[in-house]
């Protein structure tokens, strides 16, 4: 496989603290990888290691087939975009874009051509003579992307590039980045803690926790087949409902005795004996009324809280003694105290071993 960035057994320690633990990651040519995780999970650290801004404590990093473990950032063939934009405040946009190239001693015509091209792609032409202080947040972020663009490199690294922007701008720029990727087709590694960004942008998402990758898959798999409780809980908003219980054979018994048949669930391995387990069901997989009756599992519940979201409505209730949310079509009128039938298909849910937290 044509690998663009290859991370082999990389670990990083700050004193006694292990920030990255024997991490492996292969990023294909032109692939858009998102490193997703809560703060402190090591995702930014990993990005900084790839960029060469941090020295690894062990392992190797390859970019474009070259071992760059000891190379300076500028020699790695990467461009990087930062959360705070990190623009040079006293230089105009044009100078910001060209400074690195001129320092490297590139010919003037070539510098101008590259700046022109980047400005064109990012629609920065009107602002070339302005200083960063006179630009909006979105414009600044585009300049920051432009600075990576002019480097004409294969790999783009993004370190939470949108988290300093407001919600509206964030979704606009998200689309722009996606468009940019489609146009440039280079490898992009993107760090964020925002799962929407991850799900919308990524070819593959790497979910990280405590310096390890928990799951590396396409957004669909991550969403529908989380490999463990952590991933299942992290992805999805509102998050997945969890029911504690025991699994024996093809039946799941919740703590309050409710039995949920899981016969059509696709087990990763044949189950053996009786184990403590957690059954996860996404709110949108719970159906109401008549549809519920057709599901392998259904029960009558009382609505506790209703949150109309516009496009749909969230409702809170209890199933088998656990607080559960479900998503209903916005046409359905739900009122607090109302009793109705809900049901779901465990095949669309996820079952985890409560002790190992892994998917079963």
């Amino acid at each position, binding site marked *: 496989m044509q690998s663009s960035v290859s991370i082999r057994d990389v670990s990083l320690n700050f004193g006694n603290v292990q920030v990255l633990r024997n991490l492996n990651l292969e990023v294909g040519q032109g692939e858009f990888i998102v490193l997703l995780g809560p703060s402190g999970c090591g995702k930014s650290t990993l990005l*900084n290691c790839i*960029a*060469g*801004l941090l020295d690894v404590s062990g392992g190797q990093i390859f970019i474009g087939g070259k071992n760059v473990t000891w190379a*300076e*950032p*500028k*020699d790695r063939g*990467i*461009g*990087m975009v*930062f*959360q*705070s*934009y*990190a*623009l*040079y*405040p*006293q230089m105009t946009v044009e100078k910001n874009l060209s*400074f*690195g190239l001129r*320092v*490297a001693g590139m010919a003037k015509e070539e510098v101008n051509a590259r700046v022109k091209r980047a400005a064109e792609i990012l629609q920065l032409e009107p602002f070339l003579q302005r200083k960063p202080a006179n630009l909006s947040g979105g414009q600044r972020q585009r300049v920051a992307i432009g*600075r*990576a663009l002019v*480097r004409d490199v294969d790999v783009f690294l993004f*370190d939470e590039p949108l988290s300093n922007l407001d919600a509206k701008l964030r979704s606009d720029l998200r689309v722009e980045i996606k468009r940019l990727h489609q146009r440039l087709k280079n490898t992009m590694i993107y760090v964020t803690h925002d799962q929407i960004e991850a799900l919308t942008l990524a070819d593959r998402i790497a979910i990280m926790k405590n310096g390890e990758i928990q799951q590396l898959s396409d957004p669909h798999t991550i969403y529908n087949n989380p490999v463990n409780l952590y991933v299942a809980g992290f992805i999805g908003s509102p998050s997945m409902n969890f029911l504690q219980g025991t699994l024996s054979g093809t039946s799941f018994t919740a703590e309050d005795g409710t039995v949920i048949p899981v016969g059509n669930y696709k087990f990763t391995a044949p189950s053996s004996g009786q184990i403590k387990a957690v059954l996860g069901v996404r709110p949108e997989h719970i159906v109401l009324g008549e549809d519920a009756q057709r599901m392998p599992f259904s029960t009558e519940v009382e609505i506790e809280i209703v949150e109309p979201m516009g496009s749909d409505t969230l409702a809170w209730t209890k199933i088998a003694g656990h607080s559960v949310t479900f998503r209903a079509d916005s046409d359905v009128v739900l009122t607090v105290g109302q009793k109705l039938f809900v049901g779901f298909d465990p095949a669309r849910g996820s079952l985890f071993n409560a002790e190992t937290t892994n998917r079963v």
Partner: protein
Amino acid sequence: MTDIGRSGAVSRPVEADKPPGLLYNIFVRNITAKIAASPMVAIVLIVFIGCTLWSVWFSFTDSRSLPNGDFVGWAQYERLFSARRWKISATNLLTYGIFSLVFTMVVGFLLAVLMDQKLRFEDGFRTIFLYPFALSGIVTGLVWQWIMNPTLGLQSTIRGLGWTSFTFDWITNTDMVLYALLIAGTWHGTGFVMVLMLAGLRSIDGEIWKAARVDGIPTWRTYLQIVLPMMRGVIVTTLVIVGSGIVRTYDLVVALTNGGPGLSSEVPAKYVINYMFTAGNLGQALAASTVMLLAVFVILIPWMIIEFGPKKAH
């Protein structure tokens, strides 16, 4: 948290139905704040403005040792500008000031950059560079006089080691004495500049450094072309603090050279104080201090306008 009424600021909305008048605005609004700020206002009005006006007024009199002279117009100023000692003092201050300012700023910045290199024992080194700032000008002058004294200090020591032609007689050499002053002055002041600069360096967003590394900009160029321009605020603050110290230079000169040899290290503040207390010519002394103040105004007012003028809104 319910003591409404203790502050005018809080009680204001209660009276919102009638628009507050001018008198209200001046006296009642935020009354506690105004009372609290009144010491500062009084100090500014009475001491800094009042005493300055007082000094300017008596510079137009022939006051001797006490401020009770008759009005004599520009006579004190005419005499001041024809006095050789004043010319020498002013030139000295200009030379010393420029050198000292450039030197302390550059050395202070370089030290700060060195301290910024993730050194071991950074705290220790920083304290070493900073401690002279704790010493008074008198002590600084005395110690350096002791070291630079040709018959007892460095010169005689080095000669004693066998290099008999070695000369380091700056404090007794008319042409070099200002540089002797500079050695002592920068020794005293660079630590503080370093601390300010270091604070400035550390306040710069770490991602700027990362961006510069990714761009392949060498460290020295990053400091010079990116970081330094970003530290404008610190640099200006430092310039004001260092500059005000230089203009007032007095103790150090008195202790180190007492203006000598001859008049070769005289400074304006010393002129003022000599004429005020030794020569008993208050009018002359105050004329000199007025000129000093005017010079400072000319330099500072444009800066004040830039720094505090337009961005009043917070």
